[in-house]
């Protein structure tokens, strides 16, 4: 009986939180036109959300690509199909690893920072203070960060995949002497712009939306104490990771399931 009550309680609590999160998202959307009229706010956030994640993404992409290059050659050479290395590297990066890994890294690097920043602003009454100055913190603080996250991650994911493909070239072609022609030509003939690349971009756009939403909401909804901020930050990373993996499965099933 106790267990049942506990279950009911936590269900109601989660539903209430989902409701608050949806309202929060709605107010962000209504505030977006304001951000477009104030590009300076957006640029500042693009810097801290996008540019500061740049090296992390670039280096991770390069290394992931190099590892796939190595592993790919070892596996494919069993079948004498090293020529297909380009397809393997590009397809896995463009469809899956690029959007997913860059989203996970982005949640850890930028998402957690957003939550902590907003949570701290709430704790130090900066958000209330703004409201009392008749300045809407959703417009001034939250919406620019949302838009910055939404725009940055797809660009970062593209960079991740590009660097990964170059990394595969480094290990596969330069180090293990896969034929450079077949690496690129087979890749080009097998990867379709719309089916693979555009779908990959759609994935990262959806991940960007989820991460920015979760991170900002957790910060905005955090208990205004140091323990509250730390648990909100943890929740951002954990919930974003789950959401990314779940939506990846869903999107993959929709996009590539029929082919």
């Amino acid at each position, binding site marked *: 009986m106790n267990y049942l009550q506990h279950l009911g309680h936590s269900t109601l609590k989660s539903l209430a939180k989902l409701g608050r999160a949806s309202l929060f998202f709605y107010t962000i959307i209504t505030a977006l036109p304001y951000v477009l009229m104030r590009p300076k706010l957006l640029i500042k956030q693009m810097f801290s959300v996008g540019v500061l994640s740049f090296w992390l993404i670039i280096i991770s992409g390069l290394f992931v690509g190099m590892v796939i290059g190595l592993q790919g050659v070892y596996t494919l050479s069993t079948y004498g199909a090293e020529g297909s290395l380009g397809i393997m590297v590009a397809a896995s990066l463009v469809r899956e690893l690029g959007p997913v890994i860059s989203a996970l890294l982005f949640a850890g690097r930028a998402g957690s920072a957003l939550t902590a920043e907003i949570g701290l602003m709430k704790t*130090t009454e*900066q958000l*209330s*203070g703004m409201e*009392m*100055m*008749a300045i809407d913190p959703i417009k*001034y603080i939250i919406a620019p960060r949302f838009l910055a996250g939404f725009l940055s991650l797809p660009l970062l994911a593209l960079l991740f995949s590009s660097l990964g493909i170059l990394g595969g070239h480094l290990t596969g072609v330069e180090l293990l002497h896969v034929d450079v022609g077949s690496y690129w030509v087979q890749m080009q003939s097998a990867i379709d712009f719309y089916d693979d690349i555009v779908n990959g971009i759609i994935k990262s756009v959806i991940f960007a939306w989820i991460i920015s939403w979760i991170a900002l909401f957790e910060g905005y909804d955090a208990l205004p104490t140091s323990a509250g901020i730390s648990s909100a930050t943890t929740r951002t990373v954990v919930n974003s990771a789950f959401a990314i993996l779940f939506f990846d499965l869903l999107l993959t099933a929709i996009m590539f399931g029929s082919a």
Partner: protein
Amino acid sequence: MISIRNLTFSRGEQKIFDNISLDIMPHKITAIMGPSGAGKTTLLKLIGGQLIPDTGSITVDGKNIHQLSRAQLYTLRKKMGMLFQSGALLSDMSVFDNIAFPIREHTQLPENIIHTLVLLKLNAVGLRGARHLMPSELSGGMARRVAMARAIALDPEVIMYDEPFTGQDPISLGVLVRLIQTLNKTLQLTSIIVSHDVEETTSIADYIYVLSQGQIAGQGTPKELAESDSEWVQQFMHGKADGPVPFHYPCDSFTADLLAH
């Protein structure tokens, strides 16, 4: 100027205010006093329209603020300044930009006029020299003075102070007390101070409401309150350890507690 009628507000099961009514006179300093946890900050947030009461009304300037649309509420808030306990300065801007912020957001003034305005406000709180500092470089007292300058940036009619004296050394305390008084006089403000620091508050307040357990326990000028015949008010105003507010958190008798084990 501000009148509160039959206000009830509860958080969860707990009633923070139970049917209270009070008036705040224009151009005077009104103090709301009470022990920690009496809901003093909550009252300011209710007046600012950040929280919504269960029942009752709060009218500012003749307008019931909980019936205003969002846009009307924001217009009204431009007439209100609020000083938060922590100062609530925006941590990514310098002192100068913090004060310029509400002016830049709400007016179309050219930058050189904003510059002059900000310096005037900073001069009023004696921190013209600190304009290039970042909020993290300020002491607690200075942060509060900067916040004061920001609160008066838009020339409000009402200014609300949330615990302005808490945690200040004697010198900044003296500065703050004097500032609140002079700002009130020179700018013809209506000031509301929420505080539990009896000495400083009574020295400048024109009228005081003492809150306890969701009710108004006493009200009057500082002099009237000091001579109040309510035991509770006496205990609060003179800081006695025991009295109607017991020293012990409510519990069974000590012997019963000991014998229970």
